[in-house]
């Protein structure tokens, strides 16, 4: 399963590169921790029109809408939170042991309500394993989370 996720992650990253270079202003997946936002031009343009520079459609199939449709990865048929867009907040939640983003990730990975406290606690205790350096990418983080979950009796079922 871990391999599947990573494969999906890379597929998404390569699909998104059709429309936009990985790590571009709107393209999240693959970013390092604390990536920052360097889309000055984008923000300047958008500021006058509430505008969008991407494809203004309902992104249907991956590939047609570049990064905005690759923003979620398929996980058991459900959309999954793209961590790279919220790494600042997510890493903070893991350090604290609670927060909206870590809860949202649990939900998007299908972790049942009764296991969510364990999910948060496991991630929190393994902070150093999940964020060993400031150079981890979202894929690294996701892979470590899966590892951590696999080691836990209550959480292993969600990643096997």
């Amino acid at each position: 399963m871990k391999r599947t996720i990573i494969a999906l992650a890379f597929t998404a990253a390569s699909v998104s590169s059709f429309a936009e270079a990985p790590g571009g202003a709107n393209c999240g997946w693959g970013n390092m921790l604390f990536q920052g936002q360097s889309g000055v031009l984008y923000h300047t343009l958008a500021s006058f029109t509430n505008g969008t520079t991407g494809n203004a459609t309902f992104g249907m199939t991956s590939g047609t809408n570049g990064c905005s449709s690759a923003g979620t990865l398929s996980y058991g048929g459900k959309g999954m939170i793209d961590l790279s867009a919220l790494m600042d907040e997510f890493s903070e939640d893991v350090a604290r042991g609670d927060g909206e983003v870590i809860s949202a990730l649990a939900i998007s990975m299908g972790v049942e309500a009764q296991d969510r406290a364990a999910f948060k606690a496991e991630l929190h205790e393994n902070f150093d394993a999940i964020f060993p350096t400031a150079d981890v990418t979202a894929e690294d983080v996701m892979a470590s989370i899966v590892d951590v979950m696999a080691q836990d009796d209550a959480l292993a079922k969600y990643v096997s």
Partner: protein
Amino acid sequence: MLFFLRNYLFVIFLFCFSSLVFSNDKITTLQNLANSLNLSQAHAWRRLLHLDESGKSYVDDKNYFLSPEGKSQPEQELLASIAELINNPELQCRYPWRSRWLSENLPGFSDVFERQDCEEYDSWRGRLNANSVTLVLAASYLNSPSSMYGHTFLRFDAKSVDDQGGALGSYAVNFAAFIEGGAGFSYAYKGLFGGYPGYFSDGPYYKKVKEYSRLDNRDVWEYRLNLSTDETDILLAHLWELNKIKFDYYFFDENCSFRLLELLEVARDGTTLTEDFDVYAIPLDTVRATERAGLIERVVYRPSNRRKLEFNIALLTKDEQKLAWRLALEKDVWDSEELQGLSEKKRYKVAEVSYQYLRYLNNRRSRNQKIANHSLFLLRKMQEYSEYAQQELPSTPARPEQGHDTRALTFTAGVEGAAGIDAAEFVDLAFRSAYHGFLDNILAYPHSTELIMGGVTLRYKKDQHLQLQNLSIVEIASLNARSRFFKPLSWRVRGDVERQWTYGDDELVAKFDGGVGWTMPVFADLLAYALAQARIEYNPGFEQELDLALGASTGLLLQHVSGSFMLEAQQYRFTDGPDRRQLQISYQLPLAKNHGLRVQYTRLLNDDDAVTESSLSYRFYY
């Protein structure tokens, strides 16, 4: 062989012809029935076509219509829809709501057309997995012209969001102008005054949250609507019909908020929401219209990252704040005696504030290895002391729609006295189309900012005729206080036509002025500010009619729900005209949400000519 083929073609031809005849008959019958039922006048049909009051569609895209006259002739569009949906059943997948509406309202229609499997539509619906709809308001943002009045969009939540949360994983649908390549001044112009095509688009909600809560630091309000499952289904079925369909985008009226109201009118048949917004649609007012229509079920407040940071800072003492600030810049501060002397709980809080502040500072900067390492260091400290973590959030302030209405009428009585002229009593009648000034009732409005557009004041002086006193085009100001953590610049721009006492006459002058400076907190809510200013004025009373001036202003501002006070001294030196100094003191007492009483005193000195004006006004917001 040839014979066989010919026969074969003949059979095909016959078959097609007969089915065509059959359908045409049936179609004509259905069209006649639709006419006799007057279906094209149905509210739902007119909403579906996005007709304005004159009966013309707001949709600016011929791909939306099935009849060439569809934009202006709802009857023709209805007849064409009946024929096209029957003849080309695959069109159902492009027009799910139109198809459903006809099936439900035109007897016999559903018997004729063949129901299709709509793979793309179904997979989109599956992805949105919508059970409820939330109207999201991103609060006013002065630094971006298109967002000065706020921005609205829709969010679609799965059923689980209600009981378990996780709205970050929901989908948002946004109406926005679409920009194609390049850059330049025309972008600003077109964005404000039209010229860009507007489209609906969808995307994950967490990206919106990142944009508003983190990058723009705007508070977000989530208004959960009480649309039923069926109404939600209609909304999405119609939204799908608008995929890749162009509307002209206009900043003032046909904007994001207006389009959303139209969608809600489609979703709940019989609701009228758009009729008050034929000139301009302020997002806040569209939320009010939604509330008046009884569509809002509950409200959730999502404070911005900056708001959360400010809240956390306020939980620390002055000394602890200083430590947190230093720690954000310098790792070694962690090992300092002062910091290690704090309780473990406080050490956690200092690390948290420090981390949030460091991220705040680097929000819009590209990645920096040193900052990244430092951020991780602070996170590790948070993790180390996390047993003392207590995630406290700012309490929910007054909701934006609880503030005063955005238009104002003001009735003023006062007395004006100039040197060498008898004091004259006057009355003013003033209208202002939007939105909020420093002295207006502050409840539910952002502090320290002012945004005024489109005002006119008429004055009648005793024993004289009625005169134009002021024609205000735009007035924007931001006087946000500086602190250890935040260092905003204060600024103001104003453009208007106003009366100015000039050598004994009150001349009507056109002027534009602006300034930049600093604001500092004095005590509690009291702020002091100073701005360097420049002014260009066209004044018929000047020898050199178009003149430039440099100057400065300084003042005090106190905004409180129980009353707001402002004192300002201002000086301008023209290159050719007079040296102009002005002192103004004003106070507004809120009487109720939409009522206020204001007193104001102004003393003006043009070189040595003094003019004073005192007035009392009653202000009514509506």
